[in-house]
């Protein structure tokens, strides 16, 4: 049996004509999955700096704040996300996010150590703004669990980065470096606030 080049081409190409749709990928309107959700919080510098600042501040405050803040923040943020998903308006979201970077940066810079409930309340207050902003920006979908998980895990990882960096607080030089970092976050907060007000 001899195969000509035309026969070979036909043998190779014809099966493609029988192609039927594959359903493994997401359907239109569904959430983009874990990776899309994971990339969402780290795509905005204002979110990134504020989340890292929460970790830095937690490291400065020490136990129990260092673990209380990362445990409570995702749940309160998700509540803000729920409000955003439901379309419940929250005034001044961008200003709230910018203010979070500013105030958390200042708290780190000045090594402010308020009572635990005050620190938790402040962080939770800002978490609602961050969650709401993410909630309104989330793509519409029916099966958003992986997206939500990615979104929450990314936020938690940003806190962890802040806590890890905050580990330098045990050394005098590290304490100065942390305060400088806090000052940097605060300055960025001023810039974000100026942008939000403009």
């Amino acid at each position, binding site marked *: *049996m*001899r*195969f000509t080049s035309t026969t*070979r081409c036909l*043998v*190779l*190409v*014809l*099966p*493609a004509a*029988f*192609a*039927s*749709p*594959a*359903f*493994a*990928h997401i359907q239109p309107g569904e*959430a983009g999955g874990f990776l899309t959700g994971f990339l969402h919080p780290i795509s905005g510098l204002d979110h990134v700096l504020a989340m890292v600042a929460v970790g830095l501040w937690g490291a400065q405050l020490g136990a129990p704040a260092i*673990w209380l803040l*990362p*445990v*409570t923040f*995702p*749940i309160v*943020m*998700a*509540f803000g*996300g*729920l409000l*955003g*998903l*439901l*379309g419940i308006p929250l005034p001044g979201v961008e200003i709230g996010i910018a203010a979070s970077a500013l105030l958390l940066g200042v708290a780190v810079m000045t090594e402010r150590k308020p009572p635990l409930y005050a620190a938790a309340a402040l962080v939770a207050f800002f978490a609602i703004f961050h969650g709401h902003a993410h*909630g309104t920006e989330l793509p*519409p*979908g*029916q*099966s*958003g*669990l*992986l997206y*939500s*998980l990615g*979104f*929450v*895990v990314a936020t*938690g990882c940003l806190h962890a980065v802040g806590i890890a960096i905050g580990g330098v607080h045990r050394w005098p030089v590290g304490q100065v470096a942390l305060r400088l970092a806090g000052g940097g976050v605060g300055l960025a907060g001023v810039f974000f606030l100026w942008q939000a007000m403009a």
Partner: protein
Amino acid sequence: MKLGRSHNASLTRTVAFVSAMALWPLNAHAHLISTGLGPVYDGIIHFALTPEDLIPALALALFAGLRGKDYARRVIFVLPFSWLMAGFLGTLTAVPPPASLSWLPLLLVGGMVAADLRLSFGATTTIAVLLGAFLGYANGAAMAQAGPGLRAVLGISATVFVATTLVAAFVAAWQSGWIRIAWRVAGSWIAASGLLLLGWSLMAR
């Protein structure tokens, strides 16, 4: 030389045949994956690739492990058994529960882990029974509709047992200091995801 030409022709035919087979497309099933190894393995893969089932089961194992060995031993048997029984019922009725409730186990069990709730032995057992019944029934109904039926439910329940046993044992053995906090943070992430999923569910209506 003649032998080489014959070899080339044979190679061309083989390449053409293999390429044709590779180009022959088949449907991919995202919701119930057919492993080709039978319904039991289809069930195992379904559980492993369905976060709405996998995460609440692992979260309960996490909770039981945090509470200690006695709780863990109870949950690792009660949860799969309840899952199996409800799965059998689901295959008989083949009526799936509302999918919009999938946020509830995540929020409830994730919240329990995050809060490090000190529930009684009886309350923990009841939650394991209810969680197994809810998710098992949904699995059973879905498997009855998709085809694999009862044997897939058996595969799922066996995997629930293995997965929860591994997680509960790991957590029970490894929870000193910072690690316990890490488990609680994981619980808060699960609860937060459940809360967001509630938003998705309400938005979809």
